[in-house]
C-alpha cells in the first residue's frame, strides 16, 4: 500500500464546508420511453430494439465529495459508476434526484454550462485537430484571447510532459501520449472538478502504474477535485483519498482506502476489494467462535506446522493445501479447511524457494492469524 492511500481524508473537508459534488437521491433508468426520448448511449446501450425493457442503472445515490479530494468510484462493470459520472458531467439526465456542484443545482444544466471537465476512457480526442488545437478547444469556444490561450496550452502540455508534440495529430500518438493530451485538454480549462472515466484502462500495466503516480502528483499540484471511475481496486486504493464501492446501482461503502480494505462493510465489498476469504455459518462458529460472517485478508494468515500451538490472541484452523500458485515475490496457497470451506493464504517468499513452495501441495497445515484480523462483515 502506498502512503497516500492511508492518509486521512481531511484535506478537502477542511478547506470548504460546501461539497464540491453533492448527489441527492440520484436515479437513472435507461430505455425509459415515457418521455419519448432518451440519449442512446451509456451503460444501458439501447441500440437494440427501441422499446426494450428498462434498465435501472443507478438506483438512488447520495454522496458528498469534498473540495480538493481525490475521490474514486469503484465497482464492477455495470454497477452504475460510469453512469453516475456521466450524470455529474451532464451527458445523461437523471431520472430522479439532484446534482449540486459547489452548492449550485446543475441537474438540468447541459454539460457546456457546468464547471467540470472530463477525461474519457477512449480519450475522445478530436481526430481532425492537432494536439495543440485539441488542448485549445475549450479555450477557443469560450473565446479566451489568443496570447493567453497559447500560453495556457503550452503550460498544460508542459505539465503532462508533451512539449514539442503540439503539431501532431492524435492518430500519430501512442496510447499513453493520447491519455496525456486528454488530461491536458481537460485541465487547461481549470475546472473545479475533474471527472476521469477509467482513464488508464487502455494502457498496459507498467504504463498504468507510472500514470497512477503521475496523476496523483498532478492532482496534488493543481488542487482540483478529482472524481475517478475505475474497476481496478488496486488503482482505487493506490490513488484515492476516499472511495465509494458501487454495486448494482447502489453504493455499498464510502470510506478511505484503509477503511474499505480493512473494514469492508458488506460481503460484496470484502469480495470485490481484495481476495474474499469468507468464513460463515458452522465454519465461522468453529474457528472464530462467533456467529455471522467474517473475512481474513490472505496476507494476514500464517502457515504453521500442524502440531504448533497458536498464541492466545490468535485464531487457528487445520486444513490441507489443495493448490499452490507461485507468483515470484509471493506464493499463494489455497487451503481446504477441515471445518469446511477454503481460505487463500499469501506468503512472501523470503526464505522459501519455488521448489519448496510447490512441494507443499497436499500437505496438512495449521493456519493462524491474529484475532483482530478476522473482521465481521455485514450481510446483504
Amino acid at each position, binding site marked *: 500500500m502506498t502512503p497516500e492511500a492511508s492518509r486521512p481524508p481531511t484535506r478537502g473537508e477542511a478547506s470548504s464546508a460546501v461539497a464540491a459534488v453533492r448527489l441527492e437521491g440520484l436515479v437513472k433508468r435507461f430505455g425509459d420511453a415515457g*418521455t419519448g*426520448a432518451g440519449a442512446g448511449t451509456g451503460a444501458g446501450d439501447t441500440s437494440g430494439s427501441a422499446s426494450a425493457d428498462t434498465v435501472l442503472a443507478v438506483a438512488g445515490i447520495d454522496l458528498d465529495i469534498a473540495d480538493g479530494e481525490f475521490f474514486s468510484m469503484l465497482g464492477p462493470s455495470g454497477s452504475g459508476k460510469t453512469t453516475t459520472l456521466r450524470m455529474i458531467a451532464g451527458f445523461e439526465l437523471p431520472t430522479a434526484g439532484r446534482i449540486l456542484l459547489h452548492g449550485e443545482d446543475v441537474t438540468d*444544466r447541459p454539460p457546456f454550462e457546468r464547471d467540470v471537465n472530463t477525461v474519457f476512457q477512449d480519450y475522445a480526442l478530436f481526430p481532425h485537430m492537432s494536439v495543440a488545437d485539441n488542448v485549445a478547444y475549450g479555450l477557443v469556444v469560450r473565446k479566451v484571447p489568443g496570447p493567453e490561450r497559447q500560453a495556457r496550452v503550452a503550460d498544460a502540455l508542459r505539465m503532462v510532459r508533451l512539449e514539442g508534440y503540439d503539431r501532431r495529430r492524435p492518430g500519430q500518438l501512442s496510447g499513453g501520449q493520447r491519455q496525456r493530451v486528454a488530461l491536458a485538454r481537460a485541465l487547461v480549462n481549470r475546472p473545479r472538478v475533474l471527472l476521469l472515466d477509467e482513464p488508464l484502462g487502455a494502457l498496459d500495466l507498467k504504463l498504468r502504474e507510472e500514470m497512477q503516480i503521475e496523476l496523483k502528483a498532478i492532482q496534488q499540484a493543481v488542487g482540483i477535485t478529482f472524481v475517478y471511475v475505475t474497476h481496478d481496486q488496486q488503482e482505487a486504493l493506490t490513488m484515492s483519498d476516499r472511495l465509494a464501492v458501487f454495486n448494482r446501482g447502489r453504493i455499498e461503502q464510502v470510506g478511505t482506502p484503509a477503511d474499505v480494505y480493512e473494514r469492508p462493510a458488506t460481503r460484496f465489498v470484502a469480495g470485490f476489494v481484495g481476495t474474499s476469504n469468507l468464513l460463515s455459518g458452522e465454519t465461522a462458529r468453529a474457528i472464530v467462535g462467533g456467529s455471522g460472517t467474517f473475512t481474513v485478508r490472505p496476507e494476514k494468515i500464517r502457515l504453521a506446522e500442524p502440531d504448533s500451538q497458536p498464541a492466545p490472541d490468535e485464531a487457528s484452523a487445520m486444513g490441507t493445501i489443495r493448490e499452490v500458485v507461485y507468483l515470484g515475490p509471493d506464493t499463494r496457497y489455497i487451503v481446504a479447511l477441515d471445518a469446511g470451506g477454503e481460505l487463500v493464504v499469501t506468503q512472501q517468499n523470503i526464505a522459501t524457494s519455488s521448489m519448496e513452495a510447490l512441494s507443499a501441495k497436499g500437505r496438512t497445515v495449521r493456519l493462524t492469524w491474529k484475532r483482530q484480523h478476522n473482521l465481521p462483515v455485514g450481510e446483504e
Partner: protein
Amino acid sequence: MSTPTDARAGPGTRPGIARRLAIWLHPRQGLQLRLLLAGPLGWLAIAYLGALAILLLNAFWEKDAFTGRVEPFAWTLNAFRDLFGHEVYRTVAVRTLIMAVLVTLTDALLAFPIAYYMARIATPRVRAMLVIAVLMPLWAAYLVKVYAWRTILQGNGFMEWALSPFGVESPGLDEIANSWLVLSYLWLPYMILPIYAGLERIPNSLLEASADLGAKAGATFRRVILPLVFPAFVAGSIFTFSLTLGDYITPDLVSDAKFIGNVIYDNSSLGNLPLAAAYSLLPIGIMTVYLLIARRLGAFDSL
C-alpha cells in the same frame, strides 16, 4: 494555476441567443427529437406518402370512358373490376415477378465470384481499380446503357456480326430474353457492391479458424461464408428485384414484352389513371412484403 473559474463568462454577461436556446433545449430531449424529425418526416409525409395516398384514391374514382377525366370522390371499384376481369393483368404480373426473380438470381450468380475476387484475392491496387471499374457503369447514364444494348441487339448490330460466323441470327429487339439480359446487366453493380462489402467484413481469421477446425473449402464456404454474406445478398436483391419490378423503359426499348411498369405507365399515359393507380398497388404490396422480409434478414444494415 490561478483561480479555477476564470475561464467562465462572468455572471454579468448574458450568453448569446443561440447558446441560450441550446441551454433551454438541453433537458427537452423529446422536443429536440421532434425538431430534428419535423423536416424529414414532414417531407416524407407530404411529398411522398401524401402523393402515394392521392394516387391510391384515384384508384377508387370514376373515370369518363370518352374523355378520360377522373371525377374526384365519385367512388367506384371499376378499376379493380377491370383488373380482375382481364387475364392479361395476371399474366403480366406473373411474368414480371418471374423476371425480377430471374434477374436477381442471375446477378447474384455473376456478382459473387467477382465480389469474392475483389474482396479476398485481388491485391489492394487491383481491388481499388476494380471497385472504381464496377462503380463507373453504375454512374453512367441508365438510358445510355439501355440504348447501347439496343445497338448491340438489333439486326445488323454487333451481336449479329459477332455471332454470324456461327450461323446465329440477330435476336432482334422483341425477344423477352433481351429484357432479362439487359436488366441483369443494368443492376449487376448494385449486387456486386454489397456482396463485396459483406465479404470484406469477414475477417480472415474466421476462415482460418474454420479450416483449422477441419472444414474443407466447400464446407467453409457453405457454413461460414454464405451465412455471413447472406444479408448482403438480400440487400443487393432489394435493388435488383425492385428495379426490375418497376422498370418500363428497358422492356420497352429492348423487347416487346410488357411488364407491370409498362402497364402502369401505359395506362397513366393513355388516360386511364384509376386503372394505373389500382395496378400500382401490386408492386407497392410486393415491395412492402419484400422489404419487411429483407429487414428481418438483416439486410438494412448492409444497404
